[in-house]
């Protein structure tokens, strides 16, 4: 692992929450209680209706200021956070930080101090370094919440929450489903957060599928079964989540070539028959058609990829609201 992928600060595992019912920040899923995860899913269900109203807004966070602090490229996550904040009537700043000009240490802290001086209430942070969101959460004022919108290879907890929210739309009982995550598990913060969420929700059969070079050593300790054979791995699964190859995080060659990768691990139409009868196909985006998934599957009736995007707004509204709630120690 590169130095830049080492965790910056990981001693306080429960920095996320101030009690079993109260969210302080939203940095990772790993140590969240199941009840709080269900609270987020239930509240997101209530917020889902707001997008269908003639006025797509509720006044819950009126007067609050939320800052999108993205040190890494993003389309879906950045825009759905922005929409979520705006649908809650919060004031919203989108700060495009030039990655090349920003490194950990003084310059990041200086950025934070400047934003704090603007009396902001929440930072939504995406950063290429693992642990960046947690580092920021420990260096901001007491009244500021920090949401992790993806940090290095570490975590992408809001993506995992919208994924389990989407799964629950099709399969009410998490204890009865088989879920497979396919592709670049090694570099995927989505996979890591999703595995934690599925495990906390007591999904009995969680599988990770990919070439050995893209499966982290010891991944079985996370409570999953690993497969290098895609057909065997997705057999009878209710949910298959495809991941893209994260070339930007690869510092050496992990696969022979993309064509061979597609033959071995691409979701082709004939592989749909291997799923359970009502099985669904998911992808966190961006989709690389013809590399990890065919257009026919990505656009087919078993695909819920665009529903994931829509659900992302409601789920992020729920996470923003619960993190902005008055804290019990206030």
């Amino acid at each position: 692992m590169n130095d830049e992928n080492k965790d910056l600060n990981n001693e306080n595992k429960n920095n996320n929450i101030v009690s079993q019912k109260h969210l302080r920040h939203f940095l990772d899923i790993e140590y969240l209680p199941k009840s709080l995860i269900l609270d987020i899913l239930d509240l997101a269900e209530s917020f889902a209706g707001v997008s269908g109203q003639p006025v797509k807004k509720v006044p819950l966070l009126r007067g609050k200021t939320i800052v999108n602090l993205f040190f890494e490229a993003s389309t879906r996550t950045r825009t759905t956070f922005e929409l979520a904040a705006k649908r809650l009537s919060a004031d919203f700043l989108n700060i495009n930080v030039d990655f090349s000009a920003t490194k950990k240490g003084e310059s990041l802290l200086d950025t934070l101090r400047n934003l704090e001086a603007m009396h902001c209430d929440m930072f939504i942070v995406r950063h290429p370094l693992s642990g960046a969101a947690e580092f920021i959460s420990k260096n901001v004022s007491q009244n500021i919440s920090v949401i992790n919108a993806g940090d290095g290879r570490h975590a992408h907890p809001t993506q995992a929450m919208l994924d389990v929210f989407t799964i629950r739309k099709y399969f009410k009982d998490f204890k009865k489903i088989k879920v497979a995550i396919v592709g670049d598990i090694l570099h995927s913060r989505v996979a890591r957060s999703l595995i934690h969420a599925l495990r906390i929700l007591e999904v009995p059969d969680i599988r990770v599928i990919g070439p050995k070079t893209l499966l982290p050593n010891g991944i079985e300790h996370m409570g999953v079964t690993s497969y290098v054979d895609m057909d065997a791995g997705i057999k009878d699964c209710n949910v298959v989540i495809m991941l893209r190859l994260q070339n930007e995080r690869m510092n050496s060659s992990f696969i022979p070539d993309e064509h061979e990768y597609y033959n071995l691990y691409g979701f082709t139409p004939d592989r749909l028959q291997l799923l359970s009868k009502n099985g669904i196909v998911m992808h966190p985006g961006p989709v690389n058609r013809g590399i990890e998934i065919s257009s026919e599957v990505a656009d087919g009736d078993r695909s819920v990829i665009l529903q994931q995007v829509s659900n992302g707004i409601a789920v992020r509204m729920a996470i923003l609201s619960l993190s902005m709630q008055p804290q019990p120690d206030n």
Partner: protein
Amino acid sequence: MKYSKEQTQALLLKIENSLREYLSKNKIQNPIIIGVHTGGTWIADWLQCKLGYEGKAASLNISFYRDDFSRAGVNPRVEPTEMPVSIDDKHIILVDDVLFTGRTTRAAINEIFDFGRPLTVTLVVLIERNGKELPISADIVGEKMQLENNKNVKLLGPDPLIIEIIDKDH
């Protein structure tokens, strides 16, 4: 202290009759009845049936429109608002069980306007108690009540509907 089923029923009949008179006097036909979750929805459904309108009444959950988020936060389990028809240029009958401070009614009216521009909004409540904090009054009231500050009045239901007065700490 609880009202009997019959006493509560008598108040329901009173607001039903008052509403019929009101609609007739103001020449309002086919209004949209909207209940405020939870007690108001029970009464709205009852009125919907009694007035012979098809289906269930619309239901508002004002949780996201309250003015005390920074003090009380939000309950994660919020029954969704059900607004099955367009309210543009319609007469709205807004129904709640208890009118107390007026804050719930304020929130309900705000939420209604996020669904369209109604022609009129008429407020119907089963109980109006002392303690008003906003300039909001009901058009039709089942019973006006003077309660001590440490008392709350609420509606139990949906079947049977019973009015109950309890201590606030209860």
